[in-house]
Each structure stands twice: as C-alpha cells, then as structure tokens.
C-alpha cells in the first residue's frame, strides 16, 4: 500500500498536463482505480482488520486527492499564464471610434459670452431679424436723412421694413417688454444684415451681441467696468481694454472699445496692425431719447449699451483670419471644433 501511495504521488508529481493528471486520478481513484480496488478488497479481510485497513486506504485516498487538487490548481494557473502570454493584440491599431459632432464656433463663442454675462446678472433677450425702419433707425435717433444711415448700408424689404442692420433695435424692444421694471440688464445676440459683398472681413449676413443696462446711478464708469469683466472672461484674465471717443446716434457719450491684441498680447503684430489693440465694440451711454423710446424716464435712469461682432470675437478667439470660412461649413473646418 505504501508503494502504491508513493507511486501515485510520483505520478502526480510527474504529470505535466491537466489531461495527464486526470489519467492519474482515474488510475487510482476512478471506479476501477487501484485505490478503489483496494477498498473493494475490504470484504475479504477479517472483520477486526477491516476498520484499520479502511482508515489506511481512506488516508491514502485523501492524500492522493489533496495532491491532485494542488497539482490541478498549479497546472490551471500555469495554463492560464501561458494563454495570457500567448494572447496579444497590436495596440497601435486604431480603436472603434464613436462619431463625435461639433458646435459651430459662433455658438461656442456665444455660449461663453452668455455665461459671462449671466454672471453679471444679464438675461438673454432675442429679437426679430426683419424690422421696421422705425425700430432699426428712427427710435435710435437715426431719422431719415441722418448721415449715419449710409454707413449701415441697408437691405430693405419694403419702403418701411428692412433686415436689421444691428442688434440695437433689440434695445428698444427689450426695454418695452420690461415695461418700466428695473434694472434692465440683458444681451441681445443675433443675426444682422448689411449691403456688403462677401470678402475676408465682410458678409451680408453676420452676427452681433448687443448689451443694455438701464438703472438708477449707472455711469460711464460702469460701462468700462462691465466690458472689462467681459473681455477678461472671454479673451483671458490678462486682457486690457481701452475706450476711445466715437459716435453713434443712440449713445452719448459714445466710445469705441479696443481690447489688447489676443495674438501678441499688446506687443504689436500684423493682426493688430502693430498697434497692440484690436477694435471690438461700439458702446456708450444710452441717449436720453432712446431711454424715452424704451418707455423709461431719462431724468430718472441712465444706462449704457454696447454692441460687438460675434463673428469677429470668435475669429479673434480662435485665430480665424477669414470671415468666409464661418459660412462655408467645410467639414475640414467644422471638425476642428470637436470638443472645444
């Protein structure tokens, strides 16, 4: 019996595969196995020897089983390790790529702008694109014959209606909708139209963002502060602004707002004409007549307004040098805005 035991353990030891090990198991512990055979001989033994013999055989069986289990675990682990070692892929092959869309840069720019103005308590007011001459011009101090009308080459629909040349009529419509409530703080983003041929910096269709604040105690200094916050939020915290006197019939005093060049950071480069500054926005204190036309009393409240080109802001932000690409919708252009 000892010999049988030793032989079995040796064979387990020598088995190199799970199949060989199974053979060993069958040879000793199978129905016709040697150990099983030993147990079957128990009946031929004298009764008093049987318990001792039985215990011995069982001990032998348990020992073999234990070794088998150990060896099986060993071989299984080894087989797995070998399989893992065998299995490799070329990880440099491309993965399954999900299809990603993109927002147009104008939408991206506008979202950033809207976020900044939300932070300053502004809401978004959307106004119509087809307008009356009255709203687009007259209510903004641009009576017929005003020389500034020429600067805004207009696309008329009829004698009295037109495609808005700026988002400024949104000032009047927005104020009228506010019905005298204070404070008035909103931006009007939207599409505007001019009689311009398409080229690298002009388009008959483009976009503006108008801002309006009306309240008690609003001064020119607030205009400066508000726009500075916007410029820093949009172009980066280092951005500087500068105001120059300008002229718009619907603001007085009026200003042109420059921002420090986004490319050279104010050092001077071809983009800014070596001045270090980029013209961005018209602005000013809302003219008393315009405040009145919006249903407010200019003796009680003051306000400021500004308006700038969304297209231009987006172009400056992403270094786009030709306005036309914004409207061409070439996939090779659009793709670049994935994830931005």
């Amino acid at each position, binding site marked *: 019996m000892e010999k049988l035991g030793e032989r079995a353990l040796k064979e387990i030891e020598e088995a190199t595969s799970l199949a060989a090990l199974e053979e060993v198991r069958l040879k000793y512990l199978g129905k016709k196995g040697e150990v099983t055979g030993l147990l079957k001989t128990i009946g031929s033994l004298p009764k008093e020897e049987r318990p001792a013999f039985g215990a011995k055989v069982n001990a032998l069986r348990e020992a073999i089983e234990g070794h088998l289990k150990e060896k099986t675990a060993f071989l299984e682990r080894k087989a797995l390790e070998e399989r893992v070692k065998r299995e490799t892929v070329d990880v440099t092959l*491309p*993965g*399954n*790529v*999900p*299809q*990603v*869309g*993109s*927002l*147009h840069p*104008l*939408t991206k720019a506008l*979202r950033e702008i809207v976020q900044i103005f*939300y932070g300053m*308590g*502004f*809401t*978004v007011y959307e106004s*119509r*694109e*087809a307008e009356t001459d009255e709203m687009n011009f007259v209510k903004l101090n641009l009576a017929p014959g005003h*020389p*500034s009308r*020429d*600067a805004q080459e207009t*696309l008329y629909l*009829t004698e009295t*209606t037109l*495609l808005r040349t700026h988002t400024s009529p949104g000032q009047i419509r927005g104020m009228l909708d506010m019905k005298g409530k204070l*404070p008035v*703080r909103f931006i009007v983003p939207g*599409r505007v*139209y001019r009689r*311009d*041929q398409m080229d690298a910096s002009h388009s*008959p269709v483009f976009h503006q963002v108008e801002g309006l604040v009306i309240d008690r105690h609003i*001064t*020119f*200094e*607030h205009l*400066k*502060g*508000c726009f*500075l*916050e916007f410029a820093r939020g949009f172009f980066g915290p280092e951005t500087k*602004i500068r*105001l*120059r*006197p*300008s*002229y718009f019939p619907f603001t*007085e*005093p009026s200003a042109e707002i420059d921002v420090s060049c986004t490319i050279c950071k104010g050092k001077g480069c071809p983009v800014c004409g070596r001045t270090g500054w980029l013209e961005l926005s018209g602005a000013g*204190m809302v003219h008393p007549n315009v405040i009145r036309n919006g249903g407010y009393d200019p003796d009680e409240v003051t306000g400021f307004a500004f308006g700038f080109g969304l297209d231009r802001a987006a172009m400056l932000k992403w270094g786009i040098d030709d306005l036309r690409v914004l*409207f061409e*919708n*070439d*996939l090779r252009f*659009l793709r670049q805005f994935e994830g931005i």
Partner: protein
Amino acid sequence: MRVPWTWLKEYVDLDWTVEETCERLTHAGVKVENLVYEKLDLSGVVSALVEDVSTHPARPDLKVGTVNTGEGRYTVVSGAPGFEKGNLVLLAVPSSRLPGGITIETRSVAGVESQGMVVCSNEILAGEEPRPGEDIILLPPGTPLGIPAQELFTLDDWVIELDLTVNFSHCLSIMGVAIEASALSGKPLKLPEVYRNWDWAGPYGSRRPADDPDVEGEWKVELPDPDLCPRYVGKVVREVRTAYAPIEVERRLMLAGMRPISAIVDATNYVMLECGQPLHAFDADRLEGKTIWARRARQGETIETLDGEERRLEEGMLVIADARGPVAVAGVMGGSRTEVSAGTRNVLLESAFFAPIPTRQTYRKLRLRTEASARFEKTVDPTAQPVAIERAAELIAKYTGGVPERGRTDANLMEPLKRSIPFSMRVVKRTLGAPIPIEKCKEIFESLHFAVGPVKKEGDFETMDVTVPPRRVDIKEEIDLCEEVARIYGYDKFEAKPLTPAVPGGPPNKEYVWFEKMKDFLVSMGGREVVTTSLLSPDDLLAMGWDESDGRSKGVPLMDPLSSSESVLRTSLLPGLLKVVQRNQSVRMPGGFFWETGRVFFPSREELPLEAVQLGLCMYGTLRESTWVEGEAEATFFRLKGVVETLLRLMGIEASFLPGASMPMHPGISARVVAGHSTVGEVGELHPLVKKNLGLIGNCVLAWFSVEAILAMAKEKRFTPVSKFMPVERDIAVVVDASVPADSVVKVVKETARDLRSVTVFDVYDKPPVPEGKKSIALRLTYNPSDRTLTEEELSEDRERIVKALREAVGGEIRL
C-alpha cells in the same frame, strides 16, 4: 480727411511729435486711421544762380546760360521767360531724378550740350511738362546756392489720415483739427489774419470786423429756395492773370489729396481745406446777366459739368443758374460753360450754405461725390461764408495780381442761431460718474472756444450757460456738451467700476435652456452644427420642388438685393443644408451629418414678415468609412430617423411617424413627425429629382423641425423606481400584410400586454418561407413589474392575449 503735418503746425505750435499728436487726437475722438510719410521721388534739384545768358546760336527762341549751384557751373539750355541773368532758379543737375521715374541727363539741344534743366513746379511735383503759361520757379533773392528743393519748400511731409465719424464734420478742415490739437495741448491757435479779424474760431462764429466796408457787391443773388440754399455770398476779383499757385501751396493741396489746377481754383480749394467752407469760382465774363439764382432745377435742364460729362438734372436738384440756365450743380460741381480757364480775366467767387440732405441726394443721384459735397452733406459752419470768400479773394489777389471788389454780395435768409445751452453738473455726475469739477468743465469748453456764462446754483448742482460755436453742428443739447467734457478730459482717466452684483439676473427661460440642450444632444449624436446665410436665390427655393400652394415656395423678397443669388429670405433651412452638402461633395468629403438652427421667414398680412425658428438636419454619403474593425456607417433614412427619435425622447416628447412627407423628400421614404396632435417636423430621404437638379451624388437624408413647437413640448423626465426583480424577455414574430406599418403592430402589443416595460422590433423579414405580400415582424418584449417576477403561467396568458389582439387588429398570424 488728410492733414499735412506742417500745414497743421502752421496753426498750432505743437511740441508733440507727429506720432504723439496722432495718439492724442485719436483719444479725443479725431480718429487717425493712418500716418504716412509722403516723399516726392526727387533728387539732385538744387538752388542755383543764372550767371549769364545768351541766345542759342541755332534757335533764337532758346537761351543758353551758365548756372552756378555753388558747387559747380553748368551750361543749360532753356526757353523759359524766367531764365535770365541774375535770377535764382532750381536746377536739375545731370543724373537728377524727377517724379514719374524721369532722369535728367546731359543732352544736346540743337547742337548745344545742356547740362541739366531749370525746372518749373509741374516738373518737380508731377514730373510733367510745364502747363500753359507756366514759368520756371524763381527763388527769392538771398536764397543760398546748392540747397535741395525739398529743403527750400516742404515737399516731403507726414500726412495724418483721419477717419472721422459723422459728428466730427468740424474736423473736415485743417483749422478745425488745429482747434482740437490746441484744446488738447494747451498751445494757442494761430490763424491767418483774416480769420482772426472775423473771429472765425470764436463762440459766435464768424462776424464782420468793425472795418469791413458796408458795400454791396456788383452781382445780385436770388434765393427762391431757402430750404435748399439759405445763404449765398458772392464776390468779384477783377483783372486776374493766368497764373499758378506757389509750389508750396500746390504741394500742400497734393498732400491733402487734391490736384493743383490753376491759381484761382487752387485758392478756392486751399481755403476749403483750410476752413472747411467749399468755394467755387466762375469766369464772370462767361456768366449771362448780373444775377445768380440758387434754385431748383427745372424739368429737362441739363448741364455739362467740369469733368466734361453732360448731366441730366432732375427736378428738385439745387442748381446755380444765370440768365441762361444752370452753371453749377450746387454744392457738387461747377459747369464747363463758366469754367475758369487760361483766358479768364474776371472771377466771381461763390461761398454758400447748401442744405445737407438735398446735397447728399443730388450727388448720390448723379454719382458725383466731391470734396465740396462731402462737406455740405455734413453741414458747414453757417457763419463762415463771408470770411472764406475774403480769404480766397486775398489769395487770388496774391497769386494772380487780381483786384478784389470792395465788400461782397451776401444774400442771407438763414435763421439766427441760438447756440446757448444750459449745462448742469448733474449730467456729469449722473452720466460720467467721475468727479470732474466745474472748473475743469469750464476749462475744457473754453479750450474749444466755447463761451461759458456765470456759474449759478440750481438745486444741488452748479450750472452754467455754454455758447457753442456754429461750426460745431454736432452739439445740440446738454448731453452733447457732456461728451465734449468726457473726450477732452480723456476716456482713459475714467475708472472701471463693476456693476453691483446683487442683481437677480437669469436663469434664462425654459425654451432657451432646452434650445441649448437640444444642440448638445445633436452634437452627442455626431451632428455638426453649420451656419448658413438667410439670403437665397428664388431658384434655390424652386429647386426644392414646392408647388405654389406650399408657403415655402416663395420667400420674402428684398427690395434692392445685392444680387439675385441673395434676393429672398429663406423659408426653410433645407436649401442651405443641401448647399453645405454640395460644398463638401465638391471638396471630396465622403459624407457628413449637419444640422443648423435659425430663423426662416414667411410673408404675412402684418407689416413685418412672420419669423419662425427651425432646426434642420441633413446626412449624406458615408458618415464613417469602414475600418479594420467595423463596417461603414451610411447616411440612411433609418439612421437619421434614429437620431430624430432619440432627440425627441431625450427632450421628453412623444411623437409618432406618419408615412409620407412633403418635398424635397421622397414620398415613399419619408415621414411626418406628429406630436401633440400636430406636425412638428418631417424626416425623409432626399427626392431623387431634387438630388439630380442639385447635382448631388449618393445617399442624402433630411429632416426639419419647428423649434418653437418642440421646445414648447420639451419636458424634464421624472425618476421612476427600478424594479428589484429580474426582467424577463419573450420574443414574438408575427406575419402581417406587407402594407401594415410596424408601428401599428407595436401599438397593439403595447396596448395589450401587461407589465410590459418595452417592446422593440428586432427583425423584419419578407422572403420565403414568409408568403408573398406578407412580412414577418419579430418583436422582443421585456417584462419587468416592480413587485414580482412573472410566472410562466402569467407569461403564456399574456402571449395568448397578444396573439388574439394581433389577429383581430392587424390580421397577424404568429410565426413564433
């Protein structure tokens, strides 16, 4: 407006550099667009003495002289009258250069070697032959020899190019800019004597000096249309000689952007550039009668203008006329008949006020914008007509030896101006915010030559009356004065004050939030946002195949479009999206998924067109080409429909798809999307005919939605508890007529089954063994009640219910 630097400095002695001056002017609203150094292409032209002169041996009309430049003596041949012994002249020595790329070399003139050339103004400034009657330049006695022409006269100079806003018409003159520079620098204004005598810059405008002779001019002036011309001043200068203005005057005109012509015309232009009042000179002897009318043109009248064009005048245009007819288009251009020419002996000068709007209308109609009309259309100083004419007469007398008549004709129907505006410090505090004291305001006003009255106390604020010079037509009310204070004080001196943050701003309205979410959903599904124009051609709409009854077939037209390709407003986003496909196919992009949101326009009975916001979607070609690991993704109806379904689901909108949408979609491969009992959009394959007309290739699918409709229906979903029990799936396949929509089969299942969580169509099959004209639809039903796991018994009961219902409702036979 071009401002030559030296000319400006003549009126105000700035110690700033030209660059600094530009900076200061810009920051006070006089916007400098450009600073250029204008350099004549001129070298080797120097002062020289004619030492002796003799007649040319072969040509009696020419002279041969010895000319000394101090550095050498040259033998020069010339026929100019001024080429006489003892005269100081300008000699272009051999190898010198004149403008136009001309090089002067030694050359033989009728057998005599001429070492260079004595030159006239036209040769130096333009490199052109002397004009009729033009003599060589004679330098004043005492001029040192050998000095280059550029040093003798300011020929090379900086020019400040201004880009003026319309309110800065007072800077359409050098003296106007000088007033600004004087106010900013504190340097005094130094004007020519005649302007000082008339107090041109003063707060009340130009006024007759005490010694002005009270004499009426020889000519009569009639002003029948004072709304167009309320003031007309005339003055005669007699016995003028044909002459040219001095070279430095001619050069100044050139630097300012005008062409020198003759002494008389140049004098009028010089005065216009100097003070902003346009002038015109008539040959007095070619005028008929002794009366001038500033009147509206009559029907059928024509005029040949100075540029030689015969122009038809419209009734209502303002003309200047003599007894015979129009002699000038008022404020725009003079006529050829009375043009000043070489033979002119007597000149009638005109200095008038023409109303701005009619002047603009006239030059627009005639397409004839001139320096004069550019000033009249912005309103000229209504007091400056007499002083300007006096200055011009003075210059003409100086240049031509003419004799101005005493006094002048001044027909004046102008309303007296009231130019005093009360100014309260309240406006400074309220509008500007910065603590600018009244003394500073006063100083600013006075620096601009405004008159300031005594300071009074009115309520809490100090006030004063400010008298504004009439040339400042831009200043009408208190707020305008406030701007003057701000701009001279300096915008950069104002603080940047944040807005009080404690203001309830957003949140934006629900529609706006959903609108932006919708865009994010589309991006997450692979869509690329595009932005296309709202201006289309009628052909673009025609190409969509809409018939007349379709509201989209005719867009709102533009009255005066730039071109027919941009002449109507879009009625749909689809034409624009299809152009995006065209564009990308033209650059060989194999496929794409685009979407756009934007306004479309329809004619309405109201004054303004109807505006609606739409969402348009479009897929074409191969969205993703096959890779080593996956097959390709094609733009198909069901791919786009899947996007649409998902979009609506994410927005919480329940919708159904009814077969057959309108053009430009394929009638059999398209659906109307119905939600809340109305059509909110359509989705379908592009109609093959439209595809062919647009020259598109491959597959293309489209969809559009009314954004207003879907945003109104969008809603946040509520959380529902997840069942603690395992879901159970059962498949069922039903054979129905091919014409039965899958949707109706699904609907029956949904209505019949109990405890059903979802049902999906996982296969459709119409080949044998499925009988001809039939199709098999395979459905997967997922059951998952929240309170239990369904038993086999319950499931088979449900199955029987469904089978029965399908048989009754859609005639379906169960295959599985």
